[in-house]
Each structure stands twice: as C-alpha cells, then as structure tokens.
C-alpha cells in the first residue's frame, strides 16, 4: 500500500502540489490523470524519491520514504520498477544490455541467468531479435517496450509508469496498454501510472485519480470517474476547452 498524505511542493514561488492525499492499494493499477503541466510527473518523482516534498509524506508499506536517504531509500527503491516518459534507455548500450543492466548491477545475477531473463523479458514485450540494436536505431514504440522490459525484468513489487504512451499512435497506445495489463495480470505488481490517454486508460485502471491544481480532486473506479459530476473531471475526460485550461 502506498499512502500519500498532505504532499506539498513548490518550485520557487510556484506551488505545484498542494496538500495532496492519495492511497494506492497493493496489487492495483492506479492511474493519475490531469492536464499537462499539472504536476503529475512531479508527484510521481516524489513517489520514487527523486524529489523531496516541502511538507507531507509518502509511505510505502508503512515506511516513510520522504524521510529516508541513502541506503535506507535504496532498500525501498529495490522493490521498484520505473518506466520514464522518454524511456530513459542508456544510449551507450544495446537494448539487450539495457534490459540486462539492472540484473547485472542491481541483482548481481550470473551471466546465464541474466541471459535467460533478458530473453524472456524481451519476448514478453514482443521484441525478440532486436536486443542487438541501440536505442537510437529503433522506433519510439519499441523504445517504450524496451523500457517496460527493463523496468519489469527484476520482477519489482511496485511499477511506476510516467506517461508510457505519450507520442505514440493510437494502435501503439492500445498495444502498450494491453501489454501493461497483461504483464500486471501475470506478475501481480502494484502499478501507478500517469497518463493522458482518455478513454483508453479506463480499460486498464482499477482506480483513477484526477489531479488538478496540485490536488487530487476525485478518486474512484473508471466507471465512477466517467460518471463524475465534478465539472473539472467532466471537462477533462470529454476534452472540452474552457476555464479548466486556465483561460
């Protein structure tokens, strides 16, 4: 269970998160939706310990990670897998080495075991045979899938997806969503995803949380969110321009 209590963060005089509260149940897929520039990625960076809040706390199974530093924080991070918005693949390595990297460096597995798990991970994301290529040589959709393979190869308990389908065509968006859904069913991890993809995310989410002006304004099942009476939520999921855009 991930519990977020009163998370507050400002950059200079610009408040980004304001007293944000959220609970992510173990084993669920929780999707955070909201406008671009609304603080979703900043929120995710707090969950993985890349940013520290001005106030509030994040608890992962009772451990307050916002207070942890160094090895104690790393011990929590070993349970994580993170898929970054742009993939964040190491461009000096092949795709195969990218997927192998956490196995070699984080888990220190033997070569044969690394090889077996990398091949399995690449096969799971439908990328057999592309391991020898560099990230620059493959398409955006393939890069996202390699990033997913790298995040999941260590069999993490909690996986964070930062807009895993941004910039992809609708077919690839569905492909990636189905892939995440399938892997979630198979591996049973807790997933926290930041996404704009409406209505596609309603297919894979157990819980949807709407982040607006630094606060979670509505949390519920996909059906409840789609039936929400909250004008901000209604406007966002219908893609209507208006005062929620701030103009």
């Amino acid at each position, binding site marked *: 269970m991930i519990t977020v209590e009163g998370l507050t963060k400002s950059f200079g005089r610009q408040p980004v998160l304001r007293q944000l509260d959220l609970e992510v149940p173990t084993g669920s897929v929780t999707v955070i939706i909201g406008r671009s520039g609304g603080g979703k990625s900043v929120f995710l960076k707090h969950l993985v310990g890349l940013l520290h809040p001005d106030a509030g706390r994040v608890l992962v199974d009772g451990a307050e990670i916002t207070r942890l530093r160094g090895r104690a924080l790393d011990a929590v*991070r070993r349970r994580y897998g993170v898929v970054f918005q*742009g993939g964040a693949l190491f461009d000096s390595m092949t795709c195969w080495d990218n997927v192998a990297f956490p196995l070699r460096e*984080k888990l220190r597995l033997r070569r044969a075991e690394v090889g077996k798990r990398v091949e399995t991970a690449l096969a799971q994301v439908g990328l057999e045979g592309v391991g020898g290529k560099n990230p620059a040589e493959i398409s955006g959709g393939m890069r996202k899938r390699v990033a997913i393979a790298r995040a999941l190869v260590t069999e993490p308990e909690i996986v964070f997806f930062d807009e895993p389908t941004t910039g992809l065509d609708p077919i690839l968006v569905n492909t990636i969503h189905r892939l995440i859904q399938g892997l979630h069913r198979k591996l049973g991890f807790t997933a926290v995803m930041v996404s704009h993809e409406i209505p596609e995310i309603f297919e894979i989410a157990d819980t949807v949380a709407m982040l607006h002006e630094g606060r979670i304004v509505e949390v519920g099942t996909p059906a409840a969110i789609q039936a929400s009476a909250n004008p901000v939520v209604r406007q966002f999921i219908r893609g209507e321009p208006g005062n929620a855009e701030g103009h």
Partner: protein
Amino acid sequence: MTEPPLALALRPLDALGRSALSIVDALGRFGTFLIQALAATLTPPFKIRAFVDRINFIGYRSLLIILLTGAFTGMVLGLQIYITLSRFGSEAFLGPAVALSIIRELGPVLAALMVTGRAGSALTAEIGIMRITEQIDALTVMALNPMRYLVAPSILAGVVTFPLMTALFDVIGIFGGYLVGVELLGLSQGTYFGEMKTFVDLDDIMLGFWKSISFGIIVTWVCTYKGFHVGHGAEGVARATTQAVVMSSVLILVWDYFFGSVWR
C-alpha cells in the same frame, strides 16, 4: 504566508544578499560533489569497465591533439629561445631552457587545456544529455549510485591519463625543440641533450607530475559537475559545456600559479 514587500531602498541590499547566498550555496554544492565523487572513487564496488572506457575517452582519443600541440609548442620554443639566447651568445642553453619550460610549466598546462577542450567538453555534454533524458534518474531509481558509474571512473581516469598525456607532451615538445635547434639551426646534438641533463633534475619532473595529477582532478571534477547540474534542454547542455571548458581553463591557470608558487 507571503512576506511583505521590502522598502525600495533595501532592495539592492536584498539582491546583494541573495546573490552572496547563492554563491556560497553553489560553492557548497561544488565541494560536496567532489567529496561524494571521491567517496565513490575510493570505496568498492569499483567499476573497472567504466574506468577503462573513460581512459579511452579522456586519454587515448586525445593522443593526436597532444602529439600535434606538443610538437609545435616545442618547435616554437626552440626557435624563439634560440633567437633570444643567440643575442647573449648562450645558444648552448637551448636544451635546458626548452626542457625546463615544457616540463615545469607548458607541458602540464597545455596538455590539460587541450584535454579540457577535447574530452572535458564531451564529458559535460554526455553527462548533461544523460541528465536531461532522465538516464541519471533511471540509475538512481534502480538504487544504483550515479556518482559511482559516471563521475568516479572519470575522476580516476583523469588522475591516470593526465600525467601520461603530460609526459607524452613533454617528450614530443623536447623533440620539437631538438628538430628546430639541432636539425634546422645547427646546434650540436650533444650540447642540446648534455646541458639538459645537467640542468633538469627530478624535482622539475615531479613538479610537472603533481601539477598534471591536480589538473586531472580539476578538469574531471568541473566537467562532470557541470554535466550533472545541467539546465533544461539542448540550450542547457550547450551552456553547461561552455561553462565547463571556461571554468576548467581558468582554474587550471589559477591553480598552476599557486601550485608553482608553493612548490619551486
């Protein structure tokens, strides 16, 4: 709660105070970065593969520019010092004059400046791009210390390669002086090298050696720091790269003066 606005007369003082604090803050971060990097350099696990890669990146790929600048520096020194010494009838001292200039001063400084221009800038750009494309964040969330993978191998490679580059620069520079003084201007080979053996001692060589090691630390420290703390986008990387080269070059010259003043 927002602070009340300052009186107009106090605003310059407020701005001065803020900039002083930001300088102290930046210096603190700069120093802390080196301490963290040295801690990652001196404690296991050591990243041997990354270290060898950095030696190739900083040292091996700088060989050509070191050979070229070393040769022409020696040739220019040979010519100019010969012209100067001939006015006093002291051409015999060409060998030691060229050797001492290069070994004590020009070798370590010019080799460091050349490596800064070629490898230091590339180091900043590479780490900067890794920062803006979240590759450094990816290392962090894998519970792996980016200092150990990116900074420590670079600093260690700087400590190893800078003295080697300097030694090469020295040898080629002295040979360049020989080409001009002996082969072109007619000084005897025995005089050129004989007087050099008389006047150059181990202290001179050790001065150049320690200077080059300190320059290796300065350049890799500044360049990795600037890459790590890059701004946003391509413009941020470009700015960091320029700042890294300028700051490294200035620090090399300033440190060279103080080091040379203390160790004579």
